[in-house]
């Protein structure tokens, strides 16, 4: 593979000395806080928010470090460093999450400052990936490459990232705060189920602005966000966000942990009142220091300018030939390869869901392998999707066979993206102190059961999302099939829901099917669901389309007859 990675220019925001200073100083601040904690100068209660806002959770077996991957974008150098850190400070593997971050599960507190210093070396950090503050701002994982994109949302993710980092007023919110941004009418960032979702769109005059959606969320009380503002001029984004956060900080509930998200505030006072409060605050500040100068926006936007991709042929004989010869390649093209803005290119998803594997996990060697492929074939850039896969955003069509083979050597070329075995699962009770039930073994069993590629492609697009508790980190509410692990008298049970979705116009919270089933019946239940669909589907209908047409009853009958 060509040794180009030291010289490749990057096509996303690059840190300058200011960014670097802040991250380095944050590491030193935390190093001192760790020292004081270990020396007993800080109690655990005093220390907990300090370590959370540096990404460190205490889980069942060990500390977990959640590393921020802003807008899911990584350079190959950064990905290699993550591999390095996983080897040096952890057990040599990591988990890519539903918020585009990376989790390492076996970190020691005493090593954390050094791990964070290593991250700082490649302009990365774990700032505010946990705690009651503004978290990683996520984006469409196809940003900058998608055919349907109006504007690259990552420009705004970076602007929001800076504004929200160590924000002195919003570091002790009632609860966590999650923002997602999409630049496309097809919402690949799930913006309607975030505390604030932002959708870039162009009005009739051709001006691009934001639809501001507030109060979405999953968890105990799943809700779809309400549009607070149809069209917000882009340069007023930070003022509007500050106004919204200020209203939340002042009036969000603090009496009950489970009622403290902004969605509860919107629900309790109503969208109309919320809008009034936010607009009043926004009116008072919009022409102040938060108004974004055009030069500031442009300076950041320039850094996300699309890479100058050389012209490559749109139709490639080798690809067409291989498609006919090799059925696995043909299926991979269908499921794992998406169109790109530029005719000679494609967006390739590396499936981190090999049959029977823990979803979303990658070993150090695999991470390095993906970094190498990115250097050779994708402008040195990798994305993390909120569906726990990695994406190579700029692959020339001519290079598809080579990329397929290279990913195959890593075990990341399973042709299952968007299919039934492309399962999204939280870490669950195997790792997580909050969980009620395990999710990874359930995912593994389903994955093994449906492993046959031809069958998977016949079943078609079907998103199974599994959460090990009501906190819904597996996003089960918005799975076509959602599976929620619960604990009843010490026994793991799994509640199924159907019809969840995240795209605009179709955002839906799944409806619970019926009584929860035992762990050993989950595969049969899913199988019954699939059979019901296959028997009832009309031409071109996906699982979720058939469900919407025929309703839950046929599915319910089949499942409960089988389990």
């Amino acid at each position, binding site marked *: 593979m060509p040794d180009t990675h030291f010289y490749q220019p990057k096509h996303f925001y690059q840190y300058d000395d200011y960014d670097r200073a802040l991250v380095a100083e944050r590491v030193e601040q935390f190093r001192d*806080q760790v020292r004081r904690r270990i020396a007993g100068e800080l109690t655990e209660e005093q220390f907990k928010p300090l370590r959370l806002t540096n990404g460190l959770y205490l889980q069942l077996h060990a500390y977990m470090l959640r590393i921020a991957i802003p807008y899911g974008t990584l350079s190959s150098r950064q990905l290699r460093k993550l591999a390095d850190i996983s080897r040096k400070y952890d057990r040599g593997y990591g988990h890519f999450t539903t918020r585009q971050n990376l989790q390492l599960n076996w970190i020691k507190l005493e090593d954390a400052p050094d791990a964070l210093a290593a991250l700082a070396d490649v302009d990365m950090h774990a700032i505010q990936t946990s705690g009651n503050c503004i978290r990683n701002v996520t984006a469409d994982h196809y940003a900058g490459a998608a055919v349907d994109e109006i504007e690259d949302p990552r420009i705004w993710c970076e602007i929001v990232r800076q504004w929200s*980092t160590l924000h002195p007023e919003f570091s002790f919110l009632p609860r966590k705060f999650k923002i997602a941004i999409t630049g496309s009418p097809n919402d690949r960032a799930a913006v309607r189920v975030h505390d604030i979702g932002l959708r870039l769109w162009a009005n009739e005059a051709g001006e691009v602005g934001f639809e501001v959606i507030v109060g979405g969320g999953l968890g105990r009380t799943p809700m779809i966000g309400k549009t607070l503002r149809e069209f917000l001029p882009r340069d007023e984004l930070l003022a509007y966000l500050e106004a919204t956060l200020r209203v939340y900080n002042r009036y969000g509930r603090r009496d009950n942990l489970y009622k403290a998200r902004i969605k509860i505030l919107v629900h309790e006072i109503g969208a109309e009142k919320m809008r009034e409060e936010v607009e009043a605050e926004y009116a008072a500040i919009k022409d102040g220091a938060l108004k974004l100068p055009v030069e500031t926006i442009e300076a950041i936007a320039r850094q996300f300018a699309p890479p100058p991709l050389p012209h490559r042929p749109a139709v490639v004989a080798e690809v067409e030939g291989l498609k006919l010869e090799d059925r696995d390649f043909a299926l991979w093209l269908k499921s794992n390869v998406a169109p790109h803005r530029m005719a000679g290119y494609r967006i390739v998803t590396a499936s981190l869901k090999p049959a029977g594997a823990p979803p979303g996990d990658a070993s150090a060697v695999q991470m390095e392998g993906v970094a190498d492929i990115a250097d050779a074939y994708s402008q040195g850039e990798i994305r993390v999707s909120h569906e726990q896969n990695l994406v190579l955003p700029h692959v020339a069509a001519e290079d598809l066979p080579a990329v397929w083979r290279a990913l195959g050597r890593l075990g990341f070329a399973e042709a299952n993206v968007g299919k039934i075995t492309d399962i999204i699962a939280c870490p669950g009770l195997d790792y997580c102190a909050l969980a009620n039930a395990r999710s990874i073994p359930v995912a593994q069993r389903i994955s093994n059961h449906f492993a046959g590629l031809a069958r998977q492609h016949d079943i078609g697009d079907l998103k199974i999302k599994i959460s090990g508790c009501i906190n819904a980190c597996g996003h089960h509410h918005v799975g076509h099939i959602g599976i929620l692990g619960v604990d009843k008298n010490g026994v793991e049970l799994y509640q199924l829901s159907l019809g969840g979705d995240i795209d605009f116009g179709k955002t839906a919270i799944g409806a619970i099917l019926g009584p929860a089933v035992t762990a050993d019946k989950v595969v049969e239940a899913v199988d019954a669901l699939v059979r019901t669909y296959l028997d009832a589907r009309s031409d071109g209908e996906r699982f979720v389309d058939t469900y919407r047409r025929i309703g839950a009853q046929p599915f319910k009958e089949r499942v409960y007859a089988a389990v």
Partner: protein
Amino acid sequence: MPLFSETGNTTILEPLPFADWQRRPAWPAVSLANTDPVEDLAPHVGRLRLIVLNFPKFSDGRAYSQARLLRGRLGYTGELRATGGVLQDQLPFMLRCGFDSFESDQKGFGEALAKARTLFSVVYQPAEDDRATASLLRLSRRNVHPAV
């Protein structure tokens, strides 16, 4: 409870709790609960010399917004004191939000206060201190060196 400030100038005025102060608004010192409406102080900010804001728990961040509104929206220039859950690790935030005095019995608070403003050489967002944001510095740097 030890009282700290950067300048060492703190007032000995006794603050009245908000409900009591509302009956005697000429009194120049008031203490608010973090649910009290700071906006009601607007007509009196010129006269007030001390406002005390409360953190019932250090993790309850409502007073940060109160502080910023008092400084930024209402233009209050007197002593703004933090009481309650006041810990040294939150000092950088408190200072940026406009607090200038602190009641705390945490060991080492005074030393931490002396260093708190310099813990971070960069700030990303405007607040109630006069620090130039990275954004602003970049603009002025670009104007000096347009190629950057």
